[in-house]
């Protein structure tokens, strides 16, 4: 498999506090990799560093992030911006934060497309957008494009944000807990969409999640993060069924199951 993203020895500080401590991570072309860990483990910090959207208080103190043979950290701001939203795309936990609440979904799709191609006519933009939404199995996309974000359910909004992120046919989709805010049934459907999208387009996915079940369902490979370090990584089946690290074991043990003893008598 060809290397798509290669992170070596990455260290990141928040103010003076080290939050990521010498992390190495590799995602191959077309691969789905899940970065699993608890709140504050540093997993989202890594995702933000790849996307180049870290806050001002964040400093990358060591390491390299190589994407498609380009060292991202050596690029100037403008070049990185161009990469994000073209060859690298990003979706968030809260799809509400992805959209402007005062613009219709359609206007935002048009803006997204015309920013990249000012010559593209509005009708064409809307057609392309409707097709993208239909591919995410959203009914009546023409109507949906006329709605404001608050008129959509969480699941519909998340589908829409993925559809928009995929408009540029990125090679890498970064997903930060994309299903954690959704109920379990909608969660399953969104994960299904991501799987299909990965299969059909070959877009690699790097997904951050605290949910082992989500990783098990979707990922080819998994890394487990604890306190800024990767404590275990490998193919999903091995890590989940034969974990070697104590923290990984604890994460797996803590997943509620339908078979375990209940906590009240």
């Amino acid at each position, binding site marked *: 498999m060809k290397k798509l993203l290669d992170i070596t020895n990455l260290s990141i500080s928040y103010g003076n506090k080290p939050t990521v401590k010498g992390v190495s991570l590799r995602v191959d072309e077309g691969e789905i990799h899940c970065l699993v860990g608890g709140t504050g483990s540093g997993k989202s910090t890594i995702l933000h560093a790849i996307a180049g959207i870290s806050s001002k208080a964040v400093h990358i103190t060591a390491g390299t992030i190589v994407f498609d043979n380009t060292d991202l950290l050596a690029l100037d701001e403008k070049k990185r911006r161009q990469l994000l939203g073209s060859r690298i795309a990003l979706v968030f936990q809260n799809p509400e934060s992805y959209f402007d609440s005062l613009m219709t979904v359609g206007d935002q799709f048009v803006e997204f497309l015309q920013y990249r191609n000012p010559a593209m006519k509005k009708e064409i933009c809307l057609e392309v957008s409707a097709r993208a939404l239909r591919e995410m199995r959203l009914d009546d996309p023409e109507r949906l494009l006329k709605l404001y974000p608050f008129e959509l359910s969480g699941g519909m909004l998340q589908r829409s944000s993925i559809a928009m992120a995929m408009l540029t046919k990125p090679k890498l989709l970064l997903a930060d807990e994309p299903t954690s805010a959704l109920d379990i*049934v909608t969660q399953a459907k969104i994960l299904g969409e991501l799987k299909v999208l990965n299969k059909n387009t070959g877009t690699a996915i790097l997904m951050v999640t605290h949910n082992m079940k989500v990783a098990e369902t979707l990922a080819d490979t998994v890394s487990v993060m604890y306190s800024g370090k990767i404590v275990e990584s490998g193919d999903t089946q091995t890590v989940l069924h034969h974990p070697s690290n104590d923290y990984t074991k604890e994460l797996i043990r803590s997943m509620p199951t339908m078979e375990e003893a209940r906590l009240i008598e």
Partner: protein
Amino acid sequence: MNDNILLETRELRQIYGKGRDRLEALKGVSVKVHSGESIGIIGLSGCGKSTLLRILAGLETPASGTVQFRGQTLDFDSRKSLRDYHRKVQMVFQNPMSTFSPYMTIQTYLLESLRSFGGLEGDGREQAVALLKHVELDETFLDRLPHQLSGGQLQRVVIARALALNPEVILLDEPTSALDILTQRAILELLSQIAKERNMSLIFVGHNSSVVRLLSHRVYVMETGRIVEELFSETMLQDAKEPYTRQFFPENLKKVVYNY
């Protein structure tokens, strides 16, 4: 005959909006909680489970139907009736951060309900320390502000406050869905321990049956404003008949994704 029924709703209906926007959120919901029993309510977003919980909390008046606590019908128009009820039935919300004022110290927050119900002793500091102890936090938290606490710690504080009035029922609206797996486990264990020690009933609303069953004896499954199935938590995996119910089992995740 109804001696052992602690809390009961009969034919609750709730309607939001008018005309084109009219939404019947509850279409005749009857549930029972026996003394010493905890129940779960499972359903999709928008099925009415949070509406039911808000009515059970006395925060919302139903369009019709009744809520009875120990055989007494709750009068939603009477402040006294509601106040007496609030002493007995307390609510914990999903997102701990949203229940705090950013400028209010943890001590002030903890003592709010004691203050409003006239149960404060002195400056209340000792009571606040005792409450924190129940949720395994020490007194160093008292003077902190909400943003200085983690999500799990905040949820513990919310639970501590709910305990202040010694309620008999605690209503939990997805209390762990904003937390990571390890924190979720810790909060679930804490709640089970508190329920046991105080012989309290929990009413746990959620969408993940593997979480809800951990803290309930029976589970009601809700779909578009109605109860569609009622199951014993212990055997729900085997007993569930409705395909709608089976969607909430974690195994469904794999099934849906693989068949996509």
